[in-house]
């Protein structure tokens, strides 16, 4: 489902967005997952890697047809670790969503970049694509999970896509071909992004054996098989 809506104000948007986001995940963890109480936590150590941001900087600075030059010469604001890294459980067959509440997330277009670089969402989530730049963007994806083309739209306009199938969605802009992001559509709510120090926690995980994966920058970089028991706090560290 693709639909268009205009935001009234930025601040109102934030209020609406955060409240929905907050509610949906509280509900997800406390109700959908029932009585599970195990936890997986750990630390992710990543090498310093400016590859994506440098690539973005070069390509947008060299864009020979850039109509507007504002911002193009500036070094892009680097992604935080939480914007470029996701830890998630590959598949949790025991999870079933009982919540009919609509989940929402946001993939921002600002400063000729998508933010975050990787966005994890639960299957069924509607992702908003607000344009915050003074110029047009044309977000599209030809991924088998979800194919869409939002057309060209100006600043402060938002278009949305609902992701109803799990998988990896690569998102591009048709005008700025260097713009790139990944949406990980996951079939269970046990995913998170690390703090800036690399620490992460997956709470309320039902006991079981799982494949736990790390997505970093543009690809999945590590997968570990773990077994977590009732009331256990399992530590799983990743060194990339």
């Amino acid at each position: 489902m693709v639909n268009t809506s205009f935001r009234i104000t930025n601040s109102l948007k934030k209020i609406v967005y955060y409240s929905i986001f907050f509610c949906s995940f509280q509900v997800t963890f406390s109700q959908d997952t029932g009585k599970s109480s195990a936890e997986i936590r750990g630390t992710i150590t990543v090498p310093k890697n400016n590859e994506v941001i440098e690539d973005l900087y070069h390509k947008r600075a060299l864009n020979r047809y850039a109509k507007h030059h504002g911002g193009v010469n500036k070094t892009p604001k680097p992604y935080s670790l939480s914007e470029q890294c996701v830890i998630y459980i590959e598949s949790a067959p025991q999870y079933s969503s009982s919540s009919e509440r609509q989940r929402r997330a946001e993939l921002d277009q600002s400063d000729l970049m998508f933010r975050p670089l990787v966005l994890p969402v639960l299957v069924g989530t509607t992702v908003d694509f607000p344009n915050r730049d003074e110029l047009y963007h044309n977000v599209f994806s030809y991924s088998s999970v979800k194919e869409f083309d939002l057309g060209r739209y100006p600043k402060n306009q938002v278009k949305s896509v609902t992701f109803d199938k799990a998988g990896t969605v690569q998102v591009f802009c048709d005008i700025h071909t260097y713009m790139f992001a990944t949406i990980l559509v996951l079939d269970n709510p046990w995913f998170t992004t690390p703090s800036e120090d690399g620490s992460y926690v997956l709470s309320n995980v039902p006991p079981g054996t799982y494949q736990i994966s790390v997505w970093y920058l543009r690809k999945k970089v590590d997968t570990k098989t773990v077994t977590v028991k009732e009331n256990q706090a399992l530590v799983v560290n990743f060194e990339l």
Partner: protein
Amino acid sequence: MNQQLKICLTLFILLHLVSQFSYAQIFVSGQASASYLQSGEALSRYTVNEGRGTFAWRLDVFADAIISENLKFYSNIRITEEQRLNIDLLKLRVTDIAGLGLNANIGKIFIPFGSLGERRYPKQNPFFHLPLMNEHITTLALSDYSLHTLDPMQVISGNGFRLLDYGLYDAGISLDGSVGKIEYALALINGAVSATSSYTASGLNNNQGFGSVAHIAYVPSEEFSLGGSFGYGPFISENNPQGEDPNHYPQRITGIDISYSLGYFSFFGEAIYNNWMFDDEPDLNAFAYSAEIHYTIIPRILCAVRVGGIRFNEITADVYSQDGTYGTYTGTWDDIVVRYETALQYRIEKDALIKLVYEIYSTYGNFGDPSDNLLVLQTVFGF
């Protein structure tokens, strides 16, 4: 071949020099396309290989570098199935001079005429050809500036001026920038916009003196742009067979362009009035127009239509017939032509597409309307 070797060597040395700057890193990208063409069989400048089904290819390689924050290097090499190697672009670009938002380009630059922009490349152009005004070869001979209105073979052989030269590149300097909602670009180039260096057999400009070109656009919003272009410069060579002063033979060309783009829809319109001025003879005029619409029907599939045409003024001239007699010819100096194009494009991937294009040519002139419509199947791959 010698010429190509020289070009390659020059480019290699230049790239090497650029890479010597401490911050410079060369980014190579490009587009490759392969086409199958099937045209009518008639004797016409628009038929391809006399109507025999033909494969064609084209390769564009872009090598660009950031030398410093405000200094960049750009280059394009284009090679086609004729094994011809063209350096379309080879320029240094200085951005934001003295913090004024003014940019300068020097070298082989884009000529700032009209609004062709990225549509010059196969991946961004849903059609096979560029607008007719960039490609139509007129009956005004490049070799000796004579008219071959009644001699179609001269035109078919490619010996004729274009109104705007193909992709519009030339050696020179240009300045561009914007003030509020006005975007401007001014250039000083070699000679006229109808005969730039890209397409002469020697690989050098065949015209002399400086030509000036300007484009000013009013851009009130991101989706709309209204532009005006002007070009003036000598179109004949200093070594012309008649020994004439090139400055007495200027091309004067004016144009307007409109573009509008929103959602899944884009429109590009352009009209030009061209005047080749002769010292002691009436001018040769041409009026050309082009309008195209692109529409993305569903993700991956885009359809496009374009109509373009050129009209020419009437002249009266002495003609020499093959039977050895002289006579007088009165009529347009080239055949009036209208081209209709339809295109359907399928994006296989982000950087790979396939398109089917059909072009219908309607010619009104001395040789009727020959059967020269063209069907093209083209695949394009960007890297």
